[in-house]
């Protein structure tokens, strides 16, 4: 029942928003819905820890530690984004009449799609069938498309077009990978079998390696497009910078993880069939390339939301490298990085959304003195920026440290050193830009003061975890991470 309920809630919320008469209703339904999803995700995590996995709806839904970890991340960022949406949209649409006509329609459009987007992302980790996984990942693109183009400016429409075309090509390649993976097991399981993870995982070692090799390549390139791995990342900065703040947080914090989850599932099938060398080489190449592209392009950015978008490319690269290094420590670090990145990046997009509402520009050069005008947001930008670039004592420092030590321990000396150097480079660029925005003289004629309490609450919850996970990792979470690493073949 648990997983079914988890999926039904956002769907129901979506339906209610479709007919809700006023703004207050949509806000209430969305926040309560996402809060319930978060609670249910916690309960489901508890059950998975006890039983190893849960399966429902005659095995169509299946969750093990890896799925539930992803669900938790989606649920948490979903909840904070819902909270943040309230204040953001109220401020953003303050000059529009939202009780009727076009204003109400836009608002409805936002909340309906928000819940639908959340639903499609939640389907990804809990679907047992690799085919349904594919359908859900394609679904996330379609559900979020009109959220990206929400402002309907020329730039937003262009970003949406690029997003859907590049994303669809990627997803088509992933379909080919899925078909090949299906075919790779035909000799083991017969010509008609359910393309289920729970069926394939036990026989993974006997899958046809020649076909699996090709399948994994297509999966990494295909889902990697959606996950923002370079050089397929071209849609990402546009979509992230043109979308409304809370949607950027969802895109970067969880959508990328959903696509990455797809790669991880296939990784767990590819390693027993092919051995470590080939998947490692593939993930290492794309990971390092992503880091390199991010490091080179981050210096050229004039738009702070694009800056954050490139930082997502960077972090997806780091996670891939972590998985490639492998072993219990590398996988543990990579999964911890998934959690930390989602929370930290959503915090940063929330804060940058506040800056955008106040300054009404995305240009870094025209923003200064944030700390004077928005004292809380300014401090959070500093904390989040330090955390995001991997400074101690925040969460990302711990996970990047684990990944690096895994790299050194497993003998990947050169990749680990290159990774370290690139991270240092990105650190410099990031703090240079942030310093410019946060300090200095604020522009005249802008009234100081934060805009919304719910936005502050959303950012407060995120920063609590950003700092908290840097200081210590609670036992249930670390158990879950270890179990999830074991699913990927990194058992201790």
């Amino acid at each position: 029942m648990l997983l079914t309920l988890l999926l039904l809630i956002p769907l129901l919320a979506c339906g209610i928003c479709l007919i809700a008469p006023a703004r207050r209703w949509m806000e209430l339904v969305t926040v309560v819905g996402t809060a319930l999803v978060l609670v249910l995700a916690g309960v489901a995590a508890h059950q998975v820890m006890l039983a190893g996995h849960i399966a429902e709806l005659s095995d169509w839904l299946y969750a093990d530690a890896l799925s539930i970890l992803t669900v938790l991340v989606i649920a948490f960022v979903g909840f904070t984004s819902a909270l943040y949406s309230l204040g953001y949209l109220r401020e953003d649409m303050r000059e529009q009449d939202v009780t009727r006509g076009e204003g109400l329609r836009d608002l409805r459009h936002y909340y309906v799609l928000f819940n639908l987007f959340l639903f499609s992302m939640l389907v990804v980790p809990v679907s047992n069938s690799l085919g349904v996984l594919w359908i859900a990942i394609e679904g996330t693109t379609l559900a979020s498309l009109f959220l990206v183009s929400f402002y309907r400016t020329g730039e937003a429409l262009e970003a949406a077009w690029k997003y859907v075309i590049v994303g669809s090509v990627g997803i088509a390649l992933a379909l080919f990978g899925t078909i090949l993976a299906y075919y790779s097991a035909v000799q083991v399981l017969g010509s008609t079998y359910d393309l289920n993870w729970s069926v394939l995982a036990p026989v993974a070692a006997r899958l046809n390696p020649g076909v699996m090799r090709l399948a994994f390549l297509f999966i990494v390139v295909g889902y990697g497009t959606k996950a923002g791995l370079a050089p397929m990342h071209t849609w990402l900065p546009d979509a992230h910078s043109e979308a409304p703040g809370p949607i950027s947080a969802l895109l970067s914090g969880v959508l990328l993880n959903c696509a990455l989850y797809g790669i991880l599932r296939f990784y767990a099938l590819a390693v027993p069939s092919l051995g470590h060398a080939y998947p490692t080489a593939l993930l290492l190449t794309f990971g390092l390339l992503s880091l390199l592209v991010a490091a080179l392009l981050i210096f050229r950015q004039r738009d702070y939301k694009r800056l954050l978008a490139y930082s997502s490319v960077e972090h997806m690269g780091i996670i891939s490298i972590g998985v490639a290094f492998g072993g219990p420590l590398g996988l543990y670090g990579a999964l911890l990085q998934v959690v930390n990145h989602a929370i930290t990046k959503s915090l940063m997009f929330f804060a940058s959304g506040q800056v955008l509402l106040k300054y009404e520009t995305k240009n870094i050069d025209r923003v200064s003195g944030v700390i004077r005008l928005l004292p809380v947001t300014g401090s959070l930008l500093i904390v989040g920026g330090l955390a995001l670039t991997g400074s101690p004592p925040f969460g990302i420092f711990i996970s990047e440290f684990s990944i690096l030590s895994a790299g050194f321990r497993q003998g990947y000396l050169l990749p680990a050193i290159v990774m370290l150097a690139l991270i240092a480079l990105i650190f410099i660029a990031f703090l240079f830009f942030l310093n410019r925005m946060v300090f200095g003289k604020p522009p005249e004629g802008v009234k100081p003061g934060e805009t919304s309490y719910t936005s502050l609450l959303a950012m407060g919850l995120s920063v609590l975890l950003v700092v908290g996970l840097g200081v210590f990792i609670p036992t249930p979470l670390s158990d879950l991470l270890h179990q999830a690493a074991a699913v990927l073949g990194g058992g201790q």
Partner: protein
Amino acid sequence: MDAFVSLTLISATAAAPPTLAVQLLQALGALLLLTTFALVAARLLSGALQAYALQSLIIALVAAVVGYYTHSFDLYIVAVLTVVVKCGVIVWILRSVTQRLHVQREMRPYLGIPASLLICALLTLLAFFTSPAVVAPGTFLNEPPLAISIAMVLIGLFILSSRRHAIAQILGLLTIENGLFSGAIAIAYGMPLIVESGILFDVLVAVMVMGLLVTLIQRELITADTADLRRLKG
């Protein structure tokens, strides 16, 4: 399962006197390639749409033929769904979007049509030469169908990158998808029915959503020419 094994044997021994099944599939494969070229050669969107409808119809026939020889009822359903969704609804949606875009009905190629056809011929050759290498030796794939679907994927990518009109780009995407769909039937005799119908549903929704987006772009920027979409860089 028995029928499956027998078809496996048929295709594995295709060098021996070709049976009716293999001949039929080869003929359909050739037609499939022909419609794909027709799509590339189309000057007007309406012509390209017709080529796409024909292409989808042939894929439905392929599904039906493979379904007949493998006694797979699921593939019949897939065939019917393909005709309804692709030849019917998708073509109808794209046609109505095209009619709404009053002025722009050409494909707007970056490259002339003769040059495009030449490139596509080369891509097809490439597909035919690489597909045996792609298939592990000793497996029971029959090579020509796989080569044709790989050729369709490559040509689809080419259409996507060489045509400026937004609708033409959607058709490129749909050609890629058709190539993969036929590939799934050719190499794995189709995926589980629920997955196949889910994919069809996804494609349908994708076309609806993209059609809506094109309409918005047209209304906002008074163009459906993607070369005019170039403000976002780096």
